[in-house]
C-alpha cells in the first residue's frame, strides 16, 4: 500500500487514533444554567457553579445527555444505560473547581463505528472506542497584560463529547476523512456544529509507527489540534519524526506534544514522567446516570436519515453516481437542496425522480457548486433556490433551451435574481426546433459556403462541426442542436 512511509531501512506503517472533543449543542452548560453562545464578552456567561463558588453543586443538563445519546446512536454505538461522572483532578488557573467533571470508567457511550470514504472510491470502517461527556475548561489569555494572565470562564463548564476512536487509521488522509465524516454526522443530527475554527471541534491525535504487521509502537499524543489540515500536517510530521528516530536506532518516548501551525512541527509538551496523576474518582456530588431503554429508543426514532443511508438510497433508488452521492450527502443542506430540486423537477417535467436525478445531481455538483465557489458562498446562502434551479433545468430537459443557453440563463439568474422562464421569455432564448426555419438557415449556410460543401462531400468529414457552428450562429444559438445535426447530415449527404 502506498500509505507506508518509505524509510531508509524499509517500510513503516503509521497508526493513528483520534480523540475528538466536540462541543455539544445546548442552550446551557453541562452542569449549570449559564448560556453557551460563542463570541460573548469575557466572563458574561458564568454561573456560580462554573466559577466554583464555595458550596455550589453541579446538576446534570438533560439536553447534553440526550445529545450524547443521539451521537452514540448515529455512530451505531452501544448506549450505556448506566454511566458515572468522575472527577479528574488537576490545578490550572482556568479550571476553577480544581477538577474537571468527566467520565472515566463508565462512559455514556460504548463501541461503535464510522465508515469513511477514501479518494479511490473505497471506504473503510474506523472503530469508535467510546464517547464520554465532560466539562470544558475556561480560557487563559496570556496576551492581555505584560505580567498577568487573564481568565475567561465563558467556556468553563460547557459540555463536550469526547469521541475516542480506535487506532484504526493508517494515514493522514484517513484521519482527515474520519474527521470530515464525524463532522458530517454530528451536523446532521445537530449535536455539534463542527466548527473547528471556533474551537467547537478539536482533536487530540495519537500517532505511532511500526513495521507493517508488527506490534503497535510507542505513541505520542499531539494535543488540541484545531483544523483538519493541521491534523493531517501534524500526523505527517510526527510519523516522519518517529521513523527518523527509529531508523537512527533510537526509541520513541511516550509523551504529549503540541503542533506548531506556523512551523508545521510538533514539539514536546510533557513527558510520561511529568504526566499528571489525575486521581479520578466518582464525583460524590452527582449520582450515577441511569437511562431507561424507552428514552434511548425514542432518541433513535427521532434521528434524521444519516449520511451513509442517504448516500446508499441516492445511488440505489435514484441511480446517481457514487461520487455525486458522496458530494451531495457531505452536507445535509446539499442533500436537502438536491431532494427539493429533484421533487420540483420531476413535477415540472412529468418524469419519475430517478429519470431526472442524474441531471439534477450533475447540475448541483457542477454548475451550482462552481458558481458558489466563485462567489465564495456556501449552499446555505445560495442565491438560487432549489425551485428556481428546477425551473431552469426543466427548460433544458424539455428542450425549450439548449444546454449552452441554459448556462447563459443561469448566469443571468445569478446576476438578476430573475426566474429562468422569465429570462428565456424576455430575451427570446427559446430553442428553435421548427424544422422549416432551421432548414432555411441550413440552406443559407450551404449556399454561403459552397466550396466547403464540396470539400466535405469530397471526404473531409471534420468540416461537419463547422457547418453546425455556422447554423447555430445564424440562429443565435437557439436552434435545437439535435435537429440541426440531423437535418445538416441529411442535406450534406444528399
Amino acid at each position, binding site marked *: 500500500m502506498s500509505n507506508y512511509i518509505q524509510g531508509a531501512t524499509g517500510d513503516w506503517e503509521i497508526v493513528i487514533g483520534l480523540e475528538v472533543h466536540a462541543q455539544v449543542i445546548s442552550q446551557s452548560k453541562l452542569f449549570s444554567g449559564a448560556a453557551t453562545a460563542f463570541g460573548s464578552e469575557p466572563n458574561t456567561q458564568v454561573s*456560580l457553579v462554573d*466559577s*466554583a*463558588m*464555595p*458550596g*455550589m*453543586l*453541579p*446538576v*446534570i443538563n438533560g439536553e447534553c445527555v440526550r445529545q450524547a445519546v443521539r451521537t452514540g446512536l448515529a455512530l451505531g454505538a452501544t448506549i450505556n444505560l448506566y454511566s458515572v461522572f468522575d*472527577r479528574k*483532578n488537576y*490545578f*490550572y*488557573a482556568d479550571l*476553577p*473547581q*480544581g*477538577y474537571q467533571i468527566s467520565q472515566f470508567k463508565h462512559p455514556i457511550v460504548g463501541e461503535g463505528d464510522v465508515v469513511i470514504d477514501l479518494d479511490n472510491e473505497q471506504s473503510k470502517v474506523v472503530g469508535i472506542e467510546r464517547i464520554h461527556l465532560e466539562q470544558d475548561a475556561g480560557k487563559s489569555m496570556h496576551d492581555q497584560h505584560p505580567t498577568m*494572565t487573564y*481568565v475567561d470562564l465563558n467556556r468553563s463548564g460547557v459540555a463536550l463529547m469526547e469521541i475516542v476512536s480506535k487506532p484504526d487509521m493508517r494515514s493522514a488522509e484517513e484521519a482527515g476523512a474520519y474527521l470530515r465524516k464525524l463532522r458530517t454526522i454530528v451536523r446532521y443530527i445537530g449535536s455539534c456544529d463542527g466548527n473547528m475554527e471556533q474551537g467547537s471541534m478539536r482533536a487530540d491525535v495519537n500517532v505511532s509507527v511500526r513495521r507493517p504487521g508488527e506490534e503497535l509502537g510507542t505513541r505520542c499524543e499531539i494535543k488540541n489540534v484545531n483544523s483538519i489540515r493541521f491534523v493531517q500536517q501534524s500526523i505527517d510530521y510526527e510519523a516522519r519524526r518517529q521513523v527518523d528516530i527509529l531508523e537512527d536506532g533510537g526509541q520513541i518516548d511516550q509523551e504529549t506534544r503540541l503542533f506548531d501551525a506556523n512551523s508545521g512541527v510538533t514539539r514536546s509538551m510533557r513527558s510520561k514522567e511529568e504526566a499528571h*496523576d489525575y*486521581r*479520578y*474518582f466518582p464525583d*460524590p*456530588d*452527582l*449520582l450515577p446516570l441511569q437511562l431507561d431503554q424507552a428514552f434511548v429508543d425514542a432518541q433513535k426514532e427521532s434521528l434524521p436519515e444519516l449520511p451513509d443511508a442517504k448516500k446508499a438510497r441516492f445511488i440505489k433508488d435514484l441511480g446517481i453516481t457514487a461520487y455525486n452521492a458522496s458530494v451531495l450527502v457531505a452536507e445535509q443542506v446539499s442533500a436537502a437542496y438536491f431532494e427539493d430540486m429533484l421533487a420540483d423537477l420531476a413535477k415540472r417535467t412529468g418524469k419519475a425522480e430517478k429519470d431526472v436525478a442524474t441531471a439534477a445531481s450533475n447540475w448541483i455538483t457542477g454548475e451550482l457548486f462552481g458558481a458558489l465557489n466563485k462567489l465564495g458562498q456556501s449552499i446555505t446562502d445560495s442565491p438560487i433556490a432549489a425551485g428556481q434551479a428546477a425551473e431552469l433545468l426543466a427548460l433544458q430537459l424539455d428542450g425549450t433551451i439548449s444546454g449552452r443557453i441554459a448556462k447563459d440563463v443561469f448566469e443571468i439568474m445569478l446576476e438578476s435574481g430573475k426566474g429562468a422562464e422569465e429570462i428565456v421569455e424576455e430575451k427570446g432564448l427559446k430553442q428553435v426546433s421548427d424544422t422549416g426555419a432551421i432548414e432555411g438557415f441550413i440552406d443559407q449556410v450551404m449556399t454561403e459556403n459552397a466550396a466547403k460543401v464540396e470539400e466535405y462531400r469530397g471526404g473531409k468529414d471534420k468540416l461537419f462541426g463547422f457547418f453546425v457552428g455556422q447554423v447555430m450562429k445564424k440562429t443565435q444559438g437557439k436552434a435545437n442542436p439535435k435537429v440541426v445535426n440531423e437535418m445538416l447530415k441529411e442535406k450534406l449527404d444528399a
Partner: protein
Amino acid sequence: MTELTALTLAEARDGLVAGDFSARELTQSYVTAMETATELNAYIVDTPEQAFSMADAADARLKDGTAKAMTGIPLAIKDLFCTRDVHSCSASHILNGFQPQYESTVTQNLWDDGAVMLGKVNMDEFAMGSSNETSYYGPVRNPWKASGSEKELVPGGSSGGSSAAVAAEIAVAATGTDTGGSIRQPAAFTGTVGLKPTYGRCSRWGIIAFASSLDQAGPITRTVRDAAIMLESMASFDPKDTTSVDCPVPNYEAALTGDIRGLKVGIPKEYHADGVPEDIEKIWKQGIEWLKDAGAEVVDISLPHTKYALPTYYIVAPAEASSNLARYDGVKYGLRVTGESLDDMYALTRAEGFGDEVKRRILIGTYVLSAGYYDAYYLKAQKVRSLIARDFANAYEKVDVILTPTAPSAAFALGEKSSDPLEMYLNDIFTVPASLAGLPGISVPAGLSQDGLPLGLQLIGRAFDEETVLKVGGVLESAAQFSAKPAKWWGAK
C-alpha cells in the same frame, strides 16, 4: 428580660404567638447575652443589624398571621453555611473575607419561615476536627467545666460554636453540619440535642463542602422538640442538589407522642469499645432501662463491620475533601499569596491559607486517590462502606432504632488531644458508622459524668425515619430529666 434566653425554641415560639414578647425583644435579649459571652469565642461574626431587621419582619408576620414555627426565633449559623453578603469562610483563612452573593438552601428555608440570624458561629476549619481547635479564629470554649475545675474544655466539633452557643444560651438554637459526628458529638459535650438527618434530607447547596457523600446539615437545640421543629424548616428537596431526596417533609413535632410501646431498640455489642469510661457504659445501661420502662423491647444486635468504620471514614472523607478543597487556589476569591509563577502562587496561598489539620487531610486524601493506591484504599473503603450500610440494613430487619453512646468520653480539655490526631479521630468512633450509612442520628443529653459533665446517648434510625429517632429521643429526654446547666463563668469581667 434576660430570662427570655432561657426559653426553649418551642417555648419561645409559643410566647411569640401569644404576644408575651416580641421577636425584637427576644432578639435584643440574645444580642445582649452575646455581648457578655465573647470569651467563649462561639461567634466569629455578630450580625445584630440583620438580626433586628429580621426580627421586625418576624413581628410583622406574627401580627398578620403568616407566622411559622420558626418565625422570630434567633439562631446561630455555622460559618460554613453561605449567607448572602455575610462572612462565610468555614473558619478557614483561605476564604479570607469571603462574602457570598447567595444564600444556602437550608438557611434560606429558615429565613423563609421567619427565623432570625444572630451571627456566624465558629467551627473546626472546613469542619475537620472534633474539638473546634482547628479554627482559624481560635478555639471555642465549652460553657461547661468539670466540677471543681477551672480547666477550659472543648465544646466538641466540628460544630463547636453551634453547641457552645446553644448551651450558653446565646442562641435559641443553631445550625450544624455533620460529616462523621460533627453535630452529635458537640451536642453530647455540651448537654444539647444534636440531630443529623438522613443524607439527602437537607440540601447541601450553599454549604461549603468537606466530604460531599457524608456532609449533612441539622439542628443543635436545647430539646428534642426544638430539634423536630427546626429540622422541619431546614429540610427540603432541592433540585439544585442532585443528592437531596424528593420525599415529603413530615410534621416532625407530631411524631413526639412519647409512646414507644412495642418498639424494638437494638443494642449493638460492637459499641462496647475498649477504654470507654465506665460513666459512658453506665449511662448507656441507664438508657436501655429507661426505654424498657417506657415499653420498648430491647434486642441485642451485631453490626459486625463497626470496627472498620473509622478507618473507612478516614479514607473516604479526606479523599473527597482533597478534591473539594482544590478550588481554594488563590485565583478567584479569598486569600491570594502571590508568587513567581502560577504553581508558586498555589503553593504559597495554600500553605498560608490552610491549617495543619486541613493540610493533613488533603495529603491523606491525595495519597489514597493516587495511581497505584486507589484500589487498595479508596475502592476498598467504598466496599467496606457498603458492608457497614448492609450491617445496618440487616439490623433494621429486627429493630426499629439503635441505641448507643454518642461519644467515648465527656468533653476534654483544650489542647489535651490536639497534638495527637489519631486520638482525636477516635472521638468519632460511635458516630461515624451512621454517617457512612447515611442514616439519621440524634444525640440526647442523658446525664452527667462523675465530674459533672454532660453525656449524650445516640439513637440511629432507618433512612428517612427521623420521626422514630425523634420519638425515642423524646422518651429518653423525658426519662433523663436532664435539667443541668453550666455555671455561668463567662461575662464576669
